[in-house]
C-alpha cells in the first residue's frame, strides 16, 4: 500500500535540488542591473518550468513533512490527524480553514470512506483544491475601455513590482497598457514605476511625490481615454488597513476614479505577500469593508512562505485570485491555478 509512497518520496525530495542547480547560473543575469535604456530581454526558458522550479523549491519542505508523516503509518489515528492539523497551521492556513479541512477528513474517516494514509493524502489534496477552485478565474478586462485596475495593499506587499510585471503580461497579450503613479507618498515610488514603464516601453502618468493621489489618477484616466488605452494600471501608496485616514484616502480615490470614468475602477485588486500570517485575513476584511475588493494577487511565492492564508481567505470571500508572483523578474507573474498551487503544496504522490 505504501510502496509507491516510499518509492516516490525520495524523488520529491531530490528534484528541487536538481532544479535549483539548473537555475543557478541564470539567476545573476536575471537579477542584474536595471538599465532603463535597455529593457531586460525575457529569458527563453519556458515559463512553466520557471514557475514549477520556483514553486517546488518553495514547497518541498512542507511536502517532506507530510510525506514523513504518512510514511510508516498503517492506520489513520488521531495522532496522525493532529499532526496534519499542525502542518496545515504551520503553512499559515489558520485555525478556521484548518479545522474545516480536518473536520471533513474526520467525517470521511468515520464513514469508513478513508481507510489508509494514501487515501487520506488524496482527500486532503482534494479538500485543498476544492477550497481554491472557486478563486481560479481569468482576468478579463474587455468589458470596458479603458479598464481601470486599481492596485492596493499594505506597505511592502509588492504593488509596484506587480504592476511592472502585470503590465508586461498584458502588453504581451496585445493590450494597450498605461501606468499611473498613484503612490505619491513613498520616496521614489514614482521613479520606481517610471522605471518599470521605461523597461516595458509603456506610458506612465505621474506627478511629483507629495501630489494628491486621486488627482494624479483622475488625470491618468483622462489620458487613458484620450490615447484609447485598453488598460490603466493604477498604483497606490502602501497603507496599513487600520489607519482610518489612509483608508478614507482610498475611498476618495475610488470616488474620483468613478467620476473620471463611469464604472471605474473596474478592478480593485489587493496585493498580499505570501509571507503574511493570520493578519492577511484581517487586511482583506478591512480593505473589503472600505472599498469592496474584487480580486487578489499573491506575491513572493518564490520563497519558503506557503501563502496558506489564501485558504482562509478563499473560505470566507471566494474572491478571484488572478495571479501569483514567483520572483523579481518581469516574467515572474503567473495566472493562478488551484491545482498547480496545491500540487506545489502536496504533489500527486500516487498514480
Amino acid at each position, binding site marked *: 500500500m505504501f510502496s509507491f509512497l516510499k518509492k516516490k518520496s525520495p524523488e520529491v525530495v531530490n528534484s528541487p535540488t536538481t532544479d535549483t542547480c539548473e537555475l543557478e547560473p541564470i539567476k545573476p543575469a536575471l537579477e542584474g542591473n536595471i538599465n532603463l535604456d535597455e529593457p531586460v530581454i525575457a529569458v527563453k526558458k519556458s515559463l512553466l518550468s520557471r514557475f514549477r522550479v520556483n514553486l517546488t523549491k518553495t514547497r518541498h519542505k512542507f511536502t517532506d513533512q507530510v510525506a514523513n508523516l504518512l510514511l510508516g503509518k498503517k492506520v489513520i489515528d488521531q495522532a496522525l490527524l493532529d499532526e496534519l492539523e499542525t502542518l496545515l497551521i504551520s503553512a499559515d492556513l489558520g485555525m478556521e480553514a484548518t479545522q474545516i479541512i480536518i473536520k471533513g477528513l474526520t467525517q470521511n474517516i468515520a464513514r469508513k470512506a478513508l481507510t489508509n494514509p494514501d487515501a487520506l493524502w488524496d482527500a486532503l489534496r482534494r479538500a485543498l483544491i476544492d477550497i481554491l477552485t472557486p478563486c481560479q478565474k481569468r482576468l478579463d478586462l474587455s468589458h470596458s475601455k479603458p479598464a481601470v485596475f486599481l492596485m492596493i495593499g499594505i506597505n511592502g506587499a509588492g504593488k509596484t513590482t506587480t504592476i511592472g510585471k502585470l503590465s508586461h503580461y498584458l502588453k504581451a497579450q496585445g493590450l494597450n497598457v498605461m501606468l499611473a503613479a498613484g503612490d505619491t507618498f513613498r520616496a521614489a515610488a514614482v521613479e520606481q514605476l517610471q522605471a518599470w514603464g521605461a523597461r516595458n516601453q509603456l506610458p506612465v502618468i505621474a506627478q511629483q511625490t507629495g501630489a494628491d493621489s486621486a488627482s494624479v489618477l483622475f488625470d491618468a484616466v483622462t489620458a487613458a481615454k484620450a490615447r484609447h488605452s485598453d488598460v490603466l494600471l493604477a498604483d497606490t501608496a502602501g497603507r496599513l488597513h487600520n489607519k482610518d485616514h489612509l483608508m478614507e484616502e482610498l475611498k476618495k480615490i475610488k470616488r474620483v476614479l468613478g467620476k473620471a470614468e463611469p464604472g471605474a475602477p473596474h478592478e480593485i485588486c489587493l496585493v498580499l505577500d505570501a509571507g503574511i500570517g493570520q493578519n*492577511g485575513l484581517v487586511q482583506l476584511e478591512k480593505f473589503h469593508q472600505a472599498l469592496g475588493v474584487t480580486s487578489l494577487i499573491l506575491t513572493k511565492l518564490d520563497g519558503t512562505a506557503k501563502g496558506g492564508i489564501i485558504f482562509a481567505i478563499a473560505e470566507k470571500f471566494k474572491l478571484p485570485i488572478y495571479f501569483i508572483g514567483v520572483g523579481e523578474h518581469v516574467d515572474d507573474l503567473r495566472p493562478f491555478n488551484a491545482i498547480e498551487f496545491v500540487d506545489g503544496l502536496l504533489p500527486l504522490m500516487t498514480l
Partner: protein
Amino acid sequence: MFDSLSDRLSKTVRNWLGQGRLSEDNIQDSLREIRLALLEADVALPVVKIFIDNIKAKAIGVDVIKTLSPGQMLVKIVQDELTLLLGEKNDALDLAIKPPAVMLLAGLQGSGKTTSAAKLAKYLTERHEKKVLLVSCDVYRPAAIEQLATLAAEINVDIEASNASEQPLEIAARAKLRAQKEWYDVLIVDTAGRLHIDEAMMHEISALNAALNPIETLFVVDSMTGQDAATTAKAFNDALPLTGIILTKTDGDARGGAALSIRHITGKPIKFLGVGERVTALEPFHPDRLASRILGMGDIVSLVEEAQLHVDKVKADKLTKKMQKGKGFDLEDFRDQIAQMNKMGGIQSLMGKLPGMGAIPANVKDKVNDKSFVQIVAIINSMTPKERRDPDILKGSRKKRIANGSGTQVQDVNRLLKQFYDMQTMMKRMGKGGKGLMAMLGGMGGGMPPMPGR
C-alpha cells in the same frame, strides 16, 4: 475576530474554578488554548512547542493567589514567560568603537529596510548627536537608490551616491572609505531585499558583511510575517553574524508573534520597532508591551499585580466565606468592593488595563466614571446598617430620607438599588466560586452588570 487568550482561558478554567493549585490535569485544556492563541498570533510552531513545555513546567504545582482565578494566574505565568523570552528592554546600539561604526541592514523584499535605514539615521543624528552617512547598495530594485537619497535629503543626512550599474561591494567599500576620511561616526548601509534561499544573493550579503565588518548587522523583518518567519530568520542568522533585529510595521493590528519566533530562533535582541511611515516613527523595543499584544489582551499582568498589592485579603476572604455559606451579597459588601476598586486606581484606570476594553467606544467609557461611584458610596453611607444588610425593607419614606441624607434624588437611590440587585443575581449565579472583586471585574469585562453612569 479572534478571542483573546484571557477569554479563551476563562472558558477552559470554568470547570475547575474551585481548585487552588495548577496541576497537570487541570491545565491540559488551557495549554491547548494557549497553543492555539500563539498559533493565531503567528508564532512559529516549533517555538510554540518549546514554549508550551516551559509553561507546563512552570505552572504545575503553583498555588493560585486567592484573589485571582486560576485562569488569571495562568495568564500571568504565560505573559511573564513571553516577556522573558522576548528579551531585554531596548538593547542599545553598540557605538563604542573607533568610528565609523558600520551598520548593515538585511532582510526580505518589502520588509522595510530602506525606510528603517532613514529612520535609524534620523534617530542617531537627533538622539545621539552622531554624524551619519547613508549608502544604498540596492542596485536591483528600480529606484531603490533614489528612495534612500530622497529620504536622506528629507532628514538632512549625508548620502554616498551610488548607481545601479555598480557592484554592491564597490559601493560599500567606497562609502566606508569616505566615512573614515570625513570623520563620520556612523555609516548605515542599506541593501537589496533578498530571499534566504537565493544562494547568489545570500553570498553577496555575506561578502558585504565581510568587507564592511559592521559593528551592527541588523535583520529587518515585517511584524506581520507568518510561520515562515522561523525559516527566514534561521537562514539569515546562519548566513550573517546578526547583532539585532528591527521589527517593522508594528503600527498595524497584527499580533506580531513572528517577533517571538525570530527572537527565539536567532537568540538576537529585538532593538527597534518601526511604528509608522514617517521618518521619526522608530521606537526602542519594550518586551512587555509586545507580550500583551501577542496574547491579545490588555495589561492584565499589572492589573493582577495591583490586585495582589492592594486588595484587602482579609475582607475578600470574608466575602468569599460569606458567599460560600450561602449568605447574600449585601450593600455593605457592595461598598467594600467599590472601596477596594478605588484603592486600585479607580474604575477608569482598571478599565484601561482590562482586555477587550480597547474595543469600547470612548463615549461609553466616559460614562463610567469614578464620580458615579462617589455618589453610590454616599447613598449607601446614608443608610442604616439594617437597611444595608436588607435593602428589601427600603420603601418610599426610607428612600426619601436616604436621598436627602446623601444629597441625591430618590431616582438615584432607585437606580443604585437596581444595580445592586443585578449584581446580587450575578453573584448568586457564580455561587460558591465567587471570588469577590476579581469575579466582579470579570463580569464587567463580559458586559454585565450595568455600569453606574449618567
